[in-house]
């Protein structure tokens, strides 16, 4: 990993225009991803993590707008790209493995012809035979037999399809690969082996990864840094070295860690949920977006957006003092 910044997201806000007003899906997010770094983004459904990824890929659906901020990949301003440049940019510079990637493959075309299509669309000089050669090479990288190029998607298992989609994502040597819940639909053993493979490919080819998931343990294990999102805001960003659960965390992150049973827990470890439910993006609370569900909320949390503070290299948006946040590690609230 180098210190050179690859992706630079500055003060990004994305909103969805609905009949009942603007739903702020992503709010003032700042995030830098360095070369060859894995940044994990975690949060529950509706927290804006997929919207953030789609904004970086410029794949926002109709009705969604980047209302503020900038996204840069090295020197390219992604927000202003359009037409042919945007088409070339996608996949060549940033590739994405989608949630439910099992359904990404075309059911009526062989895997091989889909590879050819992808490779030749981005390189006019490439012949069919060359594309096929390259496709074979890519399949070897994800440890799939090259005969599978003649298969249709339905003839492959979920794990194989996912590997093929990953091979497609790295086909054009992109600088950044976005993985949006890439293994959610897969069994744990397959999931683990695919993720280990992605990390190996990253080491080999030196791309960066934006890894989006709702599985906190998983994200903490594979990422260099972890960002936590809640109601459109990036409430925490920090390194994931060591035992993630033992660090100082935002009260929401702490709550999430405590809300899932741990494999290695002792009998006395209680599972504690976070009271309340996720807020509607159309009527977000004033002040800290998490205060209605936070058991440590003070008066100021209801009025003012919390400032960003850095504690033990973890950056978080919270009104609590560093001492109070450290005490959360012992508190059981």
């Amino acid at each position, binding site marked *: 990993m180098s210190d050179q910044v690859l992706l630079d997201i500055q003060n990004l806000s994305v909103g969805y225009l609905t009949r009942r007003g603007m739903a702020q899906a992503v709010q003032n997010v700042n995030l830098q991803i360095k070369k060859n770094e894995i940044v994990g983004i975690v949060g529950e459904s509706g927290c804006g993590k997929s919207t953030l990824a789609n904004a970086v890929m410029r794949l926002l659906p109709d009705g969604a707008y980047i209302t503020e901020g900038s996204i840069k990949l090295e020197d390219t301003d992604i927000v202003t790209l359009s037409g042919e440049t945007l088409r070339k940019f996608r996949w060549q510079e940033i590739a994405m493995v989608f949630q439910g990637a099992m359904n990404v493959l075309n059911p009526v075309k062989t895997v091989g012809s889909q590879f050819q299509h992808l490779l030749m669309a981005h390189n006019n000089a490439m012949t069919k035979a060359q594309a096929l050669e390259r496709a074979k090479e890519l399949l070897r990288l994800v440890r799939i037999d090259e005969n599978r190029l003649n298969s249709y998607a339905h003839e492959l298992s979920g794990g194989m399809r996912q590997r093929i989609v990953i091979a497609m994502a790295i086909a054009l040597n992109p600088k950044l690969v976005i993985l949006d819940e890439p293994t959610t639909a897969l069994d744990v053993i397959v999931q683990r*082996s695919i993720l280990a493979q992605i990390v190996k490919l990253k080491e080999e080819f030196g791309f960066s990864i934006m890894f989006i998931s709702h599985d906190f343990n998983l994200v903490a*294990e594979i990422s260099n840094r972890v960002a936590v999102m809640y109601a459109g805001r990036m409430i925490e960003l920090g390194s994931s070295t060591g035992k993630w659960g033992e660090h100082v965390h935002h009260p929401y992150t702490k709550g999430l860690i405590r809300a899932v*049973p741990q494999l290695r827990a002792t009998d006395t470890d209680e*599972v504690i949920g976070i009271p309340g439910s996720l807020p509607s993006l159309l009527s977000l609370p004033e002040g800290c977006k998490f205060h209605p569900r936070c058991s440590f909320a003070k008066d100021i949390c209801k009025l003012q957006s919390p400032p960003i503070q850095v504690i033990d290299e973890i950056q978080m948006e919270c009104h609590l003092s560093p001492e109070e946040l450290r005490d959360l590690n012992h508190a059981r609230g």
Partner: protein
Amino acid sequence: MLGDKEIIKVEDLVVRFEVGSRGNKDFIVPVDRVNFTIHEGEVLSLVGESGSGKSTIGRTIVGFERAYSGKISLENKNVTNLRGQGKLRMLRSSIQMIFQDPFGSLNPVKTIEQHLTYVLKRHQKLRGNALHKGLEDLLTLVGLPNDADAIRKYPYELSGGQRQRIAIARALAVQPKFIVADEPISMLDVSIRADILQLLNKLKNELNVSFLFITHDLASARYFGDRVMVLYGGRVMETGSSNSVINQPLHPYTQLLIESSSGYDELKQVEETSIEAPNLSYRRHGCTFAHRCPFVMEECKKSEPPLLPVTEDHLVACYKVHKGDEA
């Protein structure tokens, strides 16, 4: 409160499905000679990947699938493959099921009140004030608000967690002895899951209901289950008390499953010999896990390892484990 009373006893259960088209018919066995007993107030967690047969076992107990052979008893009464309205109604007043998807398991055009009062009227024959009282008790039990506005809501107006509470309340409305919970928390948001797990725990402790808890998540299997049973390709690989199976897994498959689970350790490449799905054909022989097992031996491919005890409360079906014992 673990009683000695046997609630559910499953003996040599086999479920067979027909696959393939005409002229090319074949059978698969998603559940192959599975045995277990669940006592009063006890929770058995069934763990396995997709295709392991865990849901099929649950669905066969409640009568959605037919057993090919074997026996299912409810309090010593044979309830295998019941047919006919009357018998099924009897079965369902004792056995209920909670489904994975609270968005699909509730009727979109019925209110909370209608969902619950229908069952209370039908099974408990409650009317008038008793019906009101019953509804009130049920809502309090599952932690839902009990005002006139709240109970007139339709499923679409509720969050996933609230919907799952309704589904649980509906299952409880018949005062069942046994509940099959098929991945009840896997579709819910992380911050909501804990509350539903706690609710299930409360029902187990306060109402003494027994559960078959079907899940792919080992951590919640250990948390909620008194015992854990690990399935692969329709066969039981390992079973025992939750702590012994999770903390001292003996079967190579259980070990692989635990090492692969998030929260176990730093990411490492898990040894893997094949990514193929298990062979479910009824003509298969040998251990179902043999093709993926890093310790596979000749005999594993030839004959099926029997499920034998290692300690009093920990059974494993693996030649390697039992060989090791003798040495």
